[in-house]
């Protein structure tokens, strides 16, 4: 019964991912061909349309892992732990996009690939925290201990997410301020705003597709481990 449900979830996740990938191709065309070039930064400004949505999805994924970690410590439900772990892995994939496209934009605009300012350093820190989360999960075989220890790391990640958002206000940093997630109206011309919001929507869809697939994978692996355990005993 559980296996059938997980396989159905995997199929729905794959379908959603396929739709999101097609939509991503559409966003690429809109951003590269139909969105105006920014006057001062030139074409490199368009990196913004992949960097910001990737950052949004990555931090959303880590925040959801943190919230589910809290829920796991309360309910002790194994499925909650599996969704939390799934969200953490998907968040890492988006973080790789964020941490590679950011420096590619920074080189022509700032004249350097990287600077150790608060926003960049704290973003690297949350990435490394969730790399540690994955390593920890791989190192512990007992499912309950693994879930409990990784929930603690997940909650630490949740604390970091709002801090990362606030770094541009709390510290003197080179990183640009938010243009949408801020008090007041978005500070972006209409065409650029539509492209950015479309990209954010598509990356969120991609997150949901990946999450469904990764959750199904976690459940199926769990069932396989249980069957192997029963066969041994």
């Amino acid at each position, binding site marked *: 019964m559980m296996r059938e449900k997980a*396989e159905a979830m*995997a199929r729905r996740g*794959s379908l959603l*991912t396929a739709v999101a*990938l097609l939509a*991503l191709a559409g966003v*690429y065309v809109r951003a*590269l061909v139909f969105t105006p*070039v920014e*006057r*001062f*930064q*030139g*074409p*490199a400004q*368009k*990196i913004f349309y*992949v*960097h910001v949505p*990737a950052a949004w999805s990555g931090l959303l994924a880590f925040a959801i892992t943190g919230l589910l970690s809290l829920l796991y410590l309360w309910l002790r439900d194994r499925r909650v732990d599996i969704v939390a772990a799934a969200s953490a892995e*998907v968040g890492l*994939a988006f973080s*790789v*996009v964020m941490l*590679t*496209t950011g420096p*590619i*934009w920074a*080189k*022509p605009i700032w004249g350097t690939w990287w600077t150790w300012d608060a926003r960049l350093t704290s973003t690297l820190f949350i990435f490394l925290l969730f790399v540690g989360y994955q390593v920890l999960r791989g190192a512990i075989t007992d499912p309950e201990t693994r879930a409990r220890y990784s929930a603690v790391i997940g909650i630490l990640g949740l604390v970091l997410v709002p801090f990362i958002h606030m770094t541009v206000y709390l510290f003197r940093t080179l990183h640009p301020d938010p243009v949408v997630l801020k008090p007041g109206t978005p500070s972006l011309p209409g065409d650029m705003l539509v492209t950015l919001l479309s990209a954010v929507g598509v990356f969120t869809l*991609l997150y949901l597709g*990946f999450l469904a*697939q*990764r959750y*199904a*994978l976690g459940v*199926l*692996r769990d069932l*396989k481990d249980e069957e192997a355990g029963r066969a041994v005993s």
Partner: protein
Amino acid sequence: MQYPDNGGYMIAAYVVAAVVVLVYAVSLFVRLRKVSR
């Protein structure tokens, strides 16, 4: 209108993002197939 000549960086970023997303999508697909067998 004159813009800074940095289109190469833009292309590089879009290619890198597409590669990372596609590699992750394929890795999920392959792992799901393997565990479903």
